[in-house]
């Protein structure tokens, strides 16, 4: 067995860069140093695109919307209840309240149901049922909002109209549909944070004679608290930003709703409903609405990433 004479790959001795500026050809022109550097640059560039997108999005939306906010005064823009583009009145107060009311009323039922389902999946359900439920919740998360809106329009709205009164397009219809839509977010993040609680906590509590339910309430939920809060905030973000389903079931009146059976309009609905024909100040007012929405969401995201960081510090 000779040292593979015949298909020698190398000259047998070390080569230095000064001696061999280019290596023998190979895949992709064999990773010459310049090529490696070129690829590294391209990769960095693609990573930069995400940052560029954020910069462009904020730049363009603020540039379109902010001048109008200053023109009519930001207090008037945000707090005035009068939205009447034909008369040049652009107050998003009613829409702001609409978004708030709808978000709170959907969280009001989706949070308890979501957390309780998360505990069920992580602690109570047999492993098989837990994983089947997990798959179903993934599926629920994948259903497009326009399908939820359609479902609300043909089932929930007529139901409310026939049994509770009003024309059905209402805060209640929106809260039901929106609540369903944010359930997957709340459930999956809460479940993950419950599963992340060290086993020893639970075992320690059980060893002290606590029942399983007492351990869940006294030890597991408190330990998973920051994750559950994150889940709720992310659910809230999704509720605030949701558009199509809300447009389809809430009636879109620009009045502040007086009851759960009244219609309302959210900031997102306002944009999608009027963008098609708006021009001039009207269009700028819609961009301004988008800018307010954007700021809301960015603040929520910051809260989330701060709370995640805090949770991590705590864990360490």
């Amino acid at each position, binding site marked *: 067995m000779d040292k593979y004479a015949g298909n020698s790959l190398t000259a047998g001795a070390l080569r230095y860069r000064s001696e061999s500026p280019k290596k023998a050809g190979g895949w992709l022109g064999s*990773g010459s140093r310049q090529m490696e550097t070129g690829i590294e640059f391209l990769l960095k560039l693609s990573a930069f695109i995400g940052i560029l997108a954020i910069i462009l999005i904020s730049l363009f939306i603020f540039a379109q919307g902010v001048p109008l906010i200053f023109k009519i005064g930001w207090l008037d823009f945000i707090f005035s209840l009068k939205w009447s583009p034909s008369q040049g009145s652009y107050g998003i107060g009613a829409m702001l309240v609409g978004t708030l009311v709808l978000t709170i009323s959907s969280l009001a039922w989706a949070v308890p149901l979501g957390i309780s389902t998360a505990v069920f999946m992580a602690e109570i359900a047999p492993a098989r049922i837990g994983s089947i439920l997990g798959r179903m919740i993934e599926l629920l998360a994948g*259903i497009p909002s326009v399908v939820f809106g359609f479902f609300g329009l043909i089932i929930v709205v007529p139901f409310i109209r026939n049994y509770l009164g009003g024309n059905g397009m209402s805060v209640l219809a929106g809260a039901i549909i929106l609540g369903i839509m944010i359930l997957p977010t709340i459930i999956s993040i809460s479940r993950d944070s419950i599963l992340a609680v060290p086993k020893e906590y639970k075992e320690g509590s059980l060893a002290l004679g606590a029942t399983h339910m007492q351990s869940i309430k006294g030890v597991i939920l408190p330990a998973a608290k920051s994750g559950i809060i994150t889940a709720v905030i992310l659910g809230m973000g999704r509720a605030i*930003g949701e558009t199509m389903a809300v447009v389809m079931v809430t009636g879109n009146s620009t009045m502040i709703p007086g009851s759960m059976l009244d219609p309302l309009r959210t900031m997102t609905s306002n944009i999608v409903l009027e963008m098609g024909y708006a021009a001039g100040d009207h269009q700028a007012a819609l961009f301004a609405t988008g800018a307010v929405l954007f700021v809301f969401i960015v603040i929520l995201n910051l809260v989330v990433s701060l709370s995640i960081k805090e949770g991590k510090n705590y864990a360490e």
Partner: protein
Amino acid sequence: MLNSNIQDRVIRGLMWLSGLLVVAILFIIIAYISLKGISAINLDFIFDLPHRAGKEGGIFSTIISTIYLTLASLIIAVPLGVGSAIHLEEYARRDSFFARLVNLAAETLAGIPSIVFGLFGFVFFVIYLNLGWSVLSGSLTMAIMILPTITRTSQEAILSVPAEYRENSLALGASKWQTISKVVLPSALPGIITGVILSIGRAIGETAALILTAGSSLGMPAGLLDPARTMSVHLYILAMEGISMERAFGTAFLIIVLIVIINYLANLSLRRMSPAGRLQ
């Protein structure tokens, strides 16, 4: 003692009930739309062009538009997303300012509501770059929306590739890029594909951003600069304007079928990611 036992059972019962309720909600939505929608489905519905604003005929042009938009946005977003993931996991130092900024940008992008993307796409691609309401404007907007999903799932997939693969490859004299392209990426492929599949699901369902960027013309798009109406946008318009509830059900049913398939595929490729399942 007895008291706490009863309380325990009640709570346990309530939790079973909540799990059941969530399943019931999903079941009702899917069952109702399927029952009402399946009767609308036939070959004509799928392969005929819509007539009279969708009141008659099929939805073929919206299916084609959905495919165009989805493919075009993937072609833009996949290289960028996988590229950033490679940069973050293989080149950048984890605590570097740039890497932290890229991660922050991805997080923020993931949280922005689609209507805001729509506004941006409208003012930037449609107006400022003068691309008009078109497949191109819609896909570029869509690409930014799915970028965080692709980046994040690719990052996780690359991270799960054992460090020994890299060491072994480098010890054989492979360069860094050869190691990444020939060993790391092929091993990470199932995870990357999962991200792509999830993005397809998002592209199929997206409505708000596309109404503002791709328009709602019902014609068959012939090129990248033609306007297009996807199935989801079509469903919205059919239902909201009361054009044809039968066709709305049919469209909703087709969308749900696609989403179920996509969900199944994503789970399949995710399971292939586990080391035990790899290569089998």
